[in-house]
């Protein structure tokens, strides 16, 4: 993937994550249902949360490194 597409993917993960944890998408997982005895709502929120983290792990590896790293703060002898 090109550099721009990776950045685009990062934006997508962020924005989609935002949409997913907000109403109205949040209400999709409402109701009185349980999953293994745990309310679906809680399972939903934590699943989205973990998916975002997985996305961040993957993206952190591929987001471009090419910009010059600024000098660290120990760059002057003291």
């Amino acid at each position, binding site marked *: 993937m090109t550099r721009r597409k990776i950045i685009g993917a990062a934006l997508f993960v962020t924005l989609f994550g935002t949409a997913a944890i907000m*109403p109205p998408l949040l209400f999709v997982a*409402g109701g*009185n249902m349980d999953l293994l*005895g745990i309310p679906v709502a809680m399972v939903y929120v934590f699943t989205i949360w973990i998916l975002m983290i997985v996305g961040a792990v993957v993206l952190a590896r591929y987001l471009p490194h090419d910009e010059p790293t600024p000098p660290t703060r120990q760059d002057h002898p003291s």
Partner: protein
Amino acid sequence: MTLTADLVIATAVAYVGLLFLIAYVGDRHTRNRTGGFLRSPFVYTLSISVYCTSWTFYGAVGSAARTGLEFATIYLGPTLVFVGWWFILRRLVRISHDQRITSIADLVSSRFGKSSRLAVLITILAVIVISPYIALQLKAVTSSIEAIAGASEFGRGSLEGWDDTGLAFGVAACMAMFTILFGTRNVDAKEQHHGVVAAIAFEAVVKLAALVTVGVFVVYISGGADAIFANAAAAGIEVHSTYTAADRWISSTLLAAGAIICLPRQFQVTVVENSDENHLRTACWLFPTYMVAMSLFILPIALYGLTAMPTGSNPDMFTLTLPLAAGNDGLALFAFIGGFSSATSMIILESIALSIMVSNHIVVPIMLRMTAGDGIGDGLGVRRLILNARRFSIILILFLGFSYFYLTRGSDALAPIGLISFTGVVQFLPAVLAGLFWRDATAKAATVAIFVGFLVWLWSSFMPSFSSSSATVAAIMADGPFGIGWLRPQSLFGLEGLDPLAHAAFWSLFLNTTILIVGSLITNQSALEHVQAALFLNVFRKQAGEANPIRSTATADDLFLVARRVLGHQRAVNLFSEEAKQTRMPWTNLEPSTAFIRQLERELAGSIGAASAHVMLSKVVSGDTVSLEEVMQMADETQQAIEYSQELERTSAELRATAEKLEVANRELRRVDMQKDEFLSQVSHEVRTPMTAIRAFTEILMSHRNLATDARERFVGTIHKESLRLTSLLDEILDLSTLERGERVWENYAIDAEESLDQALGVCDALARQNNTTVKSGTRVGKAIILADPYRLSQVMINLVSNAIKYNEAPHPEVEIHSRIRGRNYVVEVQDNGLGIPEEEKPHIFDKFYRGRSGDATPYAGAGLGLPISREIILRMNGKLELVSGAEGACFRITLPLSDEQEVSQSG
């Protein structure tokens, strides 16, 4: 093990001692080596986890017990910011590295033209806004000690006689002392506190471990997570409708997302203490993971607490009281240490971050103002003053926190207090984002926007929290000030039906953002703002060099004095020796370059903030900034005018160029048209003469049938002659036009030009004899190889020689031919001894149909196309045919370039 109040206090003190040890070792570690483990992304991430305070440790459980899943929004917001680290955090970190930013106030002030006013405003607001948050920690620590003391069979121990307030005051005082000892041992030139960060990272591990242990314990004793939910449902607790109102959910997510950027301590650990931009790559997933781990057991603990604990117990303390109730004192102590960790880490870092802001943006500028005369003041160094200012600020901050605690002691929940602080601190967010992404945001607009946002917060979020302790506030809440209904704090401008949190967040941020945008549109930036805005916006572009804020007329001595006062002797000496080494000049003669002053300003900014460093250096090099500002101002205003007029000029230049081209083309067309007309009329004229003759004679032949035979033959001969003439004329016209248009395929061969010349002379021999003309061959080259068409070349030569013979009126006509090599050219001259060509005819001699004055008189009147054709032919051979002036009679010269072969044979 029996848990007593004395024991927990002793443990807390011992724990603080351990933190001290860690900080000390951490400082030693970074000082001796390059940092090593303490500079790893993991320690960085753990220090960011200072976000999880006792609000998380205790308050989140209480919040989950009251409103269910909503507690998660406080961690989902920051997760979004970290997952999207590429867009905001990365910029913030890069800018702060570049500009040596020391705090959130410094960041905003630096972006808006190093505005001191803005820095002061943000500092003061931050101190006020954070006080509820500090109070929250005090309250949590006090409640946790009380909870243990209350549960202990040994009574209150040494706490006998201390009430909540006293205890909280004691905690606040201890914390102040602790933080002063911790964070103000020295002024770190770069505002990085490795020891503190190490201690904070350690605390992050402790609190996570404690909360997870309690969570696992709760799940274990209740028989599994599903059992907890089943029991809660059986006990009549609604476990499913865990979503609160959408407005609350959205606002608290948004507030948390903003707070992770704007909270002074978060800015400190995430941005200022960042030693490597790439650490964000780890933190972007590790910190959210940390928060998931923290949040995982919150709801089970809350629900189990609600079912297992007697009604009326404080849900905020479930994390501590559940192990206590289960008789597991060891776990309870661990839980207490976890909560204590989360509170102390927050208080330490928050007050360090705030004290840096207070000293850099309020104390140092005041000092600078008071010592206006000699620039820097004398006596003690700035460093000592800064340290004292910070110590004082820490005390002030904790005192304010305690005051808030005291005034609102009637309310019991922790989380709402935290959200009050979040709403306040998020008022900086629009200015920060505008600084990062919008070039035209102005300092004036940002100042007013933040101030108005703060006022709305004060009215609709901060003040209502006093309603339980103040009757006046309660009255205002109910009826509005002086009975003005639309000013009621929780339904401003008649906006009813929104949750108070969403209401305050909406109005404050809405007005804040609107004022920022509209204000920026109608006000102008100062020169420095302009420069800083560009620097902030283009932080990822490789720049040729930023505009220099201060010109260098200051002497090295002055600058050194400033540097020593702020940075300390050793660092200043290092800085200046480095510069001296680089410029290869003795220190005493050091002329500070602009780059050096810029570096110095950044170094100073690292200690005292951008605005103060700018003011300080400006004083040393007084006058310069003013002129610079003026220049920049002018540049600023003229820039737009220039851009506009350049645009216009470019367009009109294009138009002009097009018009000129059109005109040239038009002129050319008209010229060609005229030439064509002229040519046509000339041709018609030329054709008409022989045609007239032919017509006349044929008419005679037709009407006089009895003409004598010899007359008839003479007439027919004339008709024939005229027809021939007509034909040759038409041939010539055709020839010329094809030559001129360059249509005919033309091939040049390497030939000997002398041969063509001899051939021409041979052809003209008869003509010469007929005219009694002597043709003399003058100096001749033996051989001249040129590139030409042999037939055409002879044609030209014949034309020239025959012209010379035909139009020679001398009594003893002579024609002389010369040829020679001149440079790389072969030159032939045909010279006659006639009258020559009159001066006025010379320019026209090569015109079409032009016949010299003599031309008409002689019997050989031609069409006047010979010379134009000849000239055209020679041109096609890359040569030149010209009339040589000055000689007696007429002299035509042909110049033709020699071919390479000739040159070889010449040189050989």
